């Protein structure tokens, strides 16, 4: 009979020798190698908090459809974050436990609170609730900061071009406010597209900063200008951008806005000759209409209904093809942890055991997960009956 318990057998035989060795061997390692065993969670929590409760300390009406919510973590210090990052708000709307990501619009230089600025989206499940129902003193759970949409001094230049659309101005607001607070000499040229003057968020503050700081320039672009408007009009296409950007040499581009804007900006920046590595785009979240996204199987209508079976559980739910699986699960009371809701962070990772889903290009599933049938349900749309393991 082979006996192969390697470690054990050597151990038994050499114990005597080792006992002797243990006595002779004196430790020379500095005390600083020691650690308080109970301290690990606290040490990490100082930098990375998963979820914290936060109170709405103040609500600011920014435009007719947009409000800023000033959030104060309850009973703990504010987490550090990088200007440009988002946080996720966890809340219950109409009995459904769900969440949405919002870029932080305040700068980290401000102590004690963070702002998110939310535009009410027509038919929006969460945004409409936030803008219409939430009052000061309400409490939410918020995630720590997430995302990678920030200036990285190690690889980005000191000459930044921000292309903002609509509520996509929020991360830039944090970056600009930080630059102002720190009197940084980084050059910022923000080109901010909105529909009408009424839609422009932070208009007064941006105008003031643009005038006051030599290194910060703000250009508004309106797609539906009022009569006699003298500023720049149109969409953020190459024709509009070219004169506003000037030379592209040595510049780093940041893009954040509604889905439609990404396609347009991709095209215009390519036309202007900007190399892909100089362009950073914020995660976009589910598109308004998934059936318009490249690769969607034409024969499937967004309201087609499929059955989702949860492996190892008894649940079976009916879902619409056009809605992200994560949203459908939540609507049916099935919890699945999540953070970015953009396919980027992998927190919602789940196994697809049978059936097919559509995941748009750019969802950050690693190669081996693709091969083993794992999906990110926040950006997966069922296109057949499916079984998933959460």
């Amino acid at each position, binding site marked *: 009979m082979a006996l192969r318990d390697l470690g054990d057998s050597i151990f038994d035989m050499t114990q005597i*020798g080792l006992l002797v060795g243990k006595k002779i061997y004196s430790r020379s390692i500095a005390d600083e190698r020691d650690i308080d065993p109970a301290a690990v969670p606290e040490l990490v929590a100082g930098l990375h908090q998963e979820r914290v409760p936060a109170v709405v300390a103040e609500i600011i009406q920014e435009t007719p459809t947009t409000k800023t919510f000033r959030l104060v973590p309850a009973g703990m210090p504010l987490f550090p974050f990088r200007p440009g990052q988002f946080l996720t708000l966890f809340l219950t709307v109409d009995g459904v436990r769900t969440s949405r990501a919002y870029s932080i619009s305040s700068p980290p230089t401000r102590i004690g609170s963070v702002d998110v600025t939310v535009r009410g989206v027509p038919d929006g499940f969460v945004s409409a609730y936030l803008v219409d129902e939430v009052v000061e003193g309400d409490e939410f759970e918020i995630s720590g900061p997430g995302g990678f949409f920030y200036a990285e001094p190690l690889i980005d230049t000191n000459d930044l071009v921000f292309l903002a659309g609509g509520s996509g101005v929020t991360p830039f607001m944090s970056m600009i406010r930080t630059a102002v607070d720190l009197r940084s000499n980084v050059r910022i040229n923000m080109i901010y597209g909105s529909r009408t003057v009424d839609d422009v968020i932070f208009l007064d503050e941006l105008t003031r900063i643009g005038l006051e700081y030599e290194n910060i320039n703000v250009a508004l672009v309106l797609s539906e200008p009022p009569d006699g408007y003298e500023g720049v009009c149109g969409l953020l296409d190459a024709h509009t951008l070219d004169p506003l950007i000037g030379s592209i040499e040595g510049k780093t581009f940041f893009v954040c806005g509604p889905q439609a804007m990404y396609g347009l900006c991709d095209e215009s920046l390519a036309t202007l000759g900007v190399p892909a590595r100089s362009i950073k785009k914020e995660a976009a979240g589910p598109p308004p209409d998934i059936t318009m996204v490249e690769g969607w199987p034409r024969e499937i209508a967004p309201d087609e209904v499929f059955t989702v079976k949860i492996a190892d559980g008894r649940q079976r739910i009916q879902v619409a093809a056009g809605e992200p699986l994560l949203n459908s699960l939540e609507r049916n009371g099935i919890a699945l942890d999540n953070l970015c809701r953009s396919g980027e962070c992998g927190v919602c990772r789940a196994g697809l055991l049978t059936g097919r889903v559509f995941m748009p290009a750019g969802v950050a599933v690693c190669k081996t997960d693709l091969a083993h049938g794992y999906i990110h349900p926040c950006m997966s749309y069922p296109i057949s009956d499916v079984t998933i393991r959460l």
Partner: protein
Amino acid sequence: MKARRAIVIGAGLGGMTAAAYLSRNGFRVDMFERNPHPGGYACSFVRGQFEFEASLHELSGVGPEDNRGGCYKMLAGCGVADKVEFLPIDQFYTSIYPDFTVTIPHGWEAAEEAYASVFPEERAGIHRVLTLMRKMYEEVSLLSKAKGPLDLVSFPVKGTHIMRSVGLTAAQVIDREFKDPKLKALFCDVWGYYGLPPSRVAWQILALGNSSYLEHGPYHVKGTSQALSNAFVEVIEENGGRVHLRNGARRILTDGGKVTGIVADDGGTYPADYIVSNANPITACYQLIGRDNVPASYLKALAEGHIAISTFNVYMGLDCPAEEVGILNHEYFINESYDMDEHYQAMFSTHRQPYWVVTNYNSSDPEFSPPGTSVVVITCIADHGAWTRVPPDRYVDEKTRLAHEMIEASDVHFPGLADHIAVLEVSTPVTNMRYSGNPGGSILGFDFDLLGSPLMRLPNRGPLEGLYFAGAWVRPGGGFETSIQSGVFAFGEVMKDVKGIKGIARAMPALG
């Protein structure tokens, strides 16, 4: 027969290995993992168009078809090996020193030639040390092939080289055989893999670790180490086990010195007679079990262990092939002097490091990143203390500064590197702590000093009945091959308790 229930806490390499073996041997296994993906350190992450390997530089103990090593055999023994593709790495390591650069190939003779080409006058010593290492390695293989008690009793006679290596640091052997400090440094240059310089690391660790690379060659895994972890999960599930992700163990329940089950993060209670904890023993005892339920002698043993190194990593996606900036090989060890103790001491600060590794993942897998790009990673050894003392609001600046300094330092050897970085991510010991829950973000559990060498390490059997440990912190220690082995050992302990010594022999993989 009613299946026995086993719970595995943590889906790191040790935990997954134990779970795979248990599930193939009649246990109903439930594995609980806090993270959304399995693997612990053995994982990857995606940023933009790049996927990064989080940990693995060089996998030891795999070997080609005609010379398989222990790691391969353990993976084959539980059905994982067939589910992954191993990619050979051409060289063992390349060392860059102030006045020479040399590449050490794998293979005993080839390595000897390479060392001797730089230090021809020390060829005899080089030959003696390599021969000694080879004998030690053969003896360990011999031991794992032992056929019965007689073979074991006679081992001290047959295994003389192993026996004589007990209680020696690497420096004690190296200093005896080599004269030139530069040769000593070159010979031990991969000491970072073992977390301590030769003056402190157990000779057995350096000798057997390097032997495994020299004998079988280093490997990587197609699709990163996440592919290895996914393969483990597939095996566990195929054998009826359940892998609970995003659901950690909050508490281990005990009753009269015996474990009875766990309370998971989802609030559920899961009963089991056998619990293998891949969560480190410190957290397991202090947080999960509660110190009052752990024998004082065991807590003392925990307090005696020293926590091994963590790492500082700069993950870079380049917009050009790595060759374009002169990075041709897989693994470069860069040294600014020959003083390894000084290099070790430097890790206690967040300042610029004099000893670091540059790894090129496209060298073993040209498809590692999109065409025309490459993934290159800078790794420094790092102590958690300096990093946890950085105030939270200074943390980003501090890691950015060190990353900048290490990129600049690497750019000296690989001109152009700094200008080709398209995507960048930086991790510190705090990052390691966060993703693994390991004290100090240790990548190797307790230090591989003499008291932490495989034989002296905490055993795989825990302080309570029904509790076992797998992972870097316990026998035989940290690293990929060793952590996998710890899972096999933990499984062996469970089998001993269930079926007695004979049962285990049938279920254990043939390692010899």
